[in-house]
């Protein structure tokens, strides 16, 4: 899923009515958001966090210092590891790690649903649907 489509989907689920237009930059087609009153924002997780604040749903970024750091850690994981996968073995190792991390958790931060869950879900969606890797778990 292209980053722009993903962000549009996120806007909808956040209940933001006015759809933003995104352009894409460079080889990896990094999304860029031109904001009305300021410089543009670049990067999937940066824009996603911005949208969450716009929708006044800051709790999706975590409520304690610890949760906030964990949310950002998994957002980084999403753009570096999940988007940066190169081989089936890599994907397999990644899914294995996630599976073992989530064994005793409901969501990535524990019990609270956050932006990290949304973006990781979007990111993993294509492997899981296309490759049916999930059957292994």
């Amino acid at each position, binding site marked *: 899923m292209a980053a722009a489509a993903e962000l549009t989907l996120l806007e909808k689920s956040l209940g933001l009515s006015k759809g933003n237009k995104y352009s894409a930059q*460079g080889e990896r087609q990094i999304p860029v958001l031109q904001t009305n009153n300021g410089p543009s924002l*670049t990067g999937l997780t*940066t824009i996603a*966090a911005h949208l969450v604040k716009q929708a006044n749903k800051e709790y999706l*970024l975590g409520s304690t210092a*610890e949760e906030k750091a964990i949310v*950002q850690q998994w957002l*980084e994981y999403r753009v*570096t590891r999940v988007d940066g996968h190169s081989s089936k073995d890599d994907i397999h190792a990644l899914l294995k790690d996630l599976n073992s991390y989530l*064994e005793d958790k409901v969501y990535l931060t524990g019990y609270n649903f956050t932006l990290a869950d949304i973006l990781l879900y979007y990111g993993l969606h294509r492997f899981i649907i296309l490759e049916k890797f999930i059957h292994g778990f």
Partner: protein
Amino acid sequence: MRLFVSEGAPGSLPVLAAARRAQGRAELLISTVGPEECVVPFLTQPKVPVLQLDNGNYLFSTSAICRYFFLLSGWEQDDLTNQWLEWEATELQPALSAALYYLVVQGKKGEDVLGPVRRALTHIDHSLSRRSCPFLAGETESLADIVLWGALYPLLQDPAYLPEELGALHSWFQTVSSQEPCQRAAETVLKQQGVLALRPYLQKQPQPSSLQGRAVSNEPEEEELATLSEEEIAMAVTAWEKGLGNLPPLRPPQNPVLPVAGERNVLITSALPYVNNVPHLGNIIGCVLSADVFARYSRLRQWNTLYLCGTDEYGTATETKAMEEGLTPQEICDKYHAIHADIYRWFNISFDIFGRTTTPQQTKITQDIFQRLFSRGFVLQDTVEQLRCEQCARFLADRFVEGVCPFCGYEEARGDQCDKCGKLINATELKKPQCKVCRSCPVVKSSQHLFLDLPKLEKRLEEWLENTLPGSDWTPNARFIIRSWLRDGLKPRCITRDLKWGTPVPLEGFEDKVFYVWFDATIGYLSITANYTDQWERWWKNPEQVSLYQFMAKDNVPFHGLVFPCSALGAEDNYTLVSHLIATEYLNYEDGKFSKSRGVGVFGDMAQDTGIPADIWRFYLLYIRPEGQDSAFSWTDMLLKNNSELLNNLGNFINRAGMFVSKFFGGYVPEMVLTSDDQRLLAHVTLELQHYHQLLEKVRIRDALRSILTISRHGNQYIQVNEPWKRIKGSEADRQRAGTVTGLAVNIAALLSVMLQPYMPTVSATIQAQLQLPPPACGILLTNFLCTLPAGHLIGTVSPLFQKLENDQIESLRQRFGGGQLEESLELKAKVSSKPAVGETVTATGPQQIQVLMDEVTKQGNIVRELKAQKADKNQVAAEVAKLLDLKKQLALAEGKPLETPKGKKKK
């Protein structure tokens, strides 16, 4: 909470620096673990640093740990910090880990290390200077500064890797480094050993994935869309309305072109290609084509411009080639000079002169410079021991000797290096040396040689560089190369050779010698100019009035930036020295290198047989110009860029704009009534045009091409939003709107045709003919966007500009050039070289093929040596050695020599 770190893990730097923020808010224990210890239970791969939180959860991302410490101290998250951290993780880290791997694990230096990160460093520098804030996210030091500082510190603490020209980055880095927490972290992690402290850790890490993939990138960094002020818009509108009246008269063509006092006089040279090689695409983009774009641009600015180049014809290689082809050196030069000239003509290179170095002028000027240096005491004499073949009556250059290696006893060691043990050899140390031409045994004779006393000239050179470099447009790699030469100290350079094919040395006792390429190749520019006009000194002895731009690939920098300036400064004759030295990085072919011997890659003479027009080649080569970092030619990418950028973007826009005028307005440009939206577009186009000028004035050729494509993208959007094809059928107001949009669009197309001229001269001329653009508007490019096609102007017949490249067409070209054309080109050569080679053993296979095999052997020898040096896997080494032996066997067969029987098994 407990922090796990490992000796030499770079992630410890920012984490330790940030930890000071959280001091007093939580208890922090630090444990040191081995680099391969798995601290985090759920991660398969080891990872440090890791922070174990009091509730048992883990933070395993360096940035997240730093963020946590900052959050504990009461800091609040913001968009800009998030953006920097995301950029650090996705862009900076992959580039940095490649650079550190090269530097620390592979022991590489200089551009090899700096290359991968240069773009990222430039990005930080630009962001800092654009926002004019001292720190990344504002007025105070914050999380983004610590995370980026920590990532960059291991590399940038060595000043060699902190490019001078990135001033904003420089001062930011110094400021952050001087903060106490950062200083402490740096001491703890690097232990005053510099970057080598990271080695124990990095060696244990897998090779960075950014290195396994394509390390080179053809993608530019895109600029943010600027916000416009009312003032800018008003100025753009005023300029536009003045129209053609704004244009100065066209400068009449001059012959010869000579500098004019009070004008801008631009002298442009492209590195002289060596005559007996057919240039490949990398050579073409490296100098000739890049310089051509700048020369054409310079003429569009009405600057007084002279662009020259020529073939470099003297030297051993020409003599060897002549022997191979059974021709005299002069005949070889004549033949290949013509081949070169044809190739550049086909590529539409706008030389004012394309000369050669084998002329009486070359002798005269070289000898004059030499005499001046000699009489001023800048030339040394010394004795050099060399091998001389009495039979051939000449001293043998290294490549003309073979013998037994003094180290390993290998029987076919070359005069400079043994292919078997890889040691460097002095030709005089070879046992049983043989002359490669007649196979007789040469004797050691001492020979007198002349040396340019560079150490004595070093001070003058440094003074000159100090005055020249600041504010000039020398490329960073050229500055870097010159700086490292000066750092190592200059040594006397031998400037004579025992050869016949060269410029004679005008000194008693040196009648059998000629000048070496180090001395006289760069003097070629002067002699070529002297063959063009007898007033050549008005260009070359006129530093006050002339700006000299020299284009080359980076391997040529020492000749132009150091040796020639030293000769010229020592000669004390007021020579014009290089003001802007423009050096490119290397262009690769697909995933490897161009190789004539393996028949890989596209060479100048073959490009025209592909059926792809010269302008498309020019466009793609300039689009991927190795500016700032290596880049790669890729067939698929060429297809993509042709079909997306040229066909769908640029071609589509220009064609639509012209078609609307023809179809809806009978070929006459309609009346334009500009709305505020149109005025904004005018200002955007003007801004982009000015950006194009700024870039080209700095010789950032590849980046300026992006501005052209950006304007046509604006144009396409403009047409798409305003839908003139619908409005033309609507009300009076709608029809007027359609007219304005069409008129503005066709004027943008006219502007694009001029901006495109340096890059694609034929396409530019086609567009101008289709639009019937008046001559002054075709030949001059101002910094403002003018209405050059006023209402009522009649345009010509419009037709499509570009053709789609098809997949199967490109696929078949890829196969043809991917290494398969070896036999074909050998056949061609066999046809042109009529006489059989003399001196070589006559065998079934030709000398060219022997050369090919010899190159292959050398190359394979290098691969084996490299693997051994890296202590690679035994089986891998054995496989490569087998290949080497096989190649040597083929070579022996081709040379008609008896096969070497292997002497027992190798001990190991």
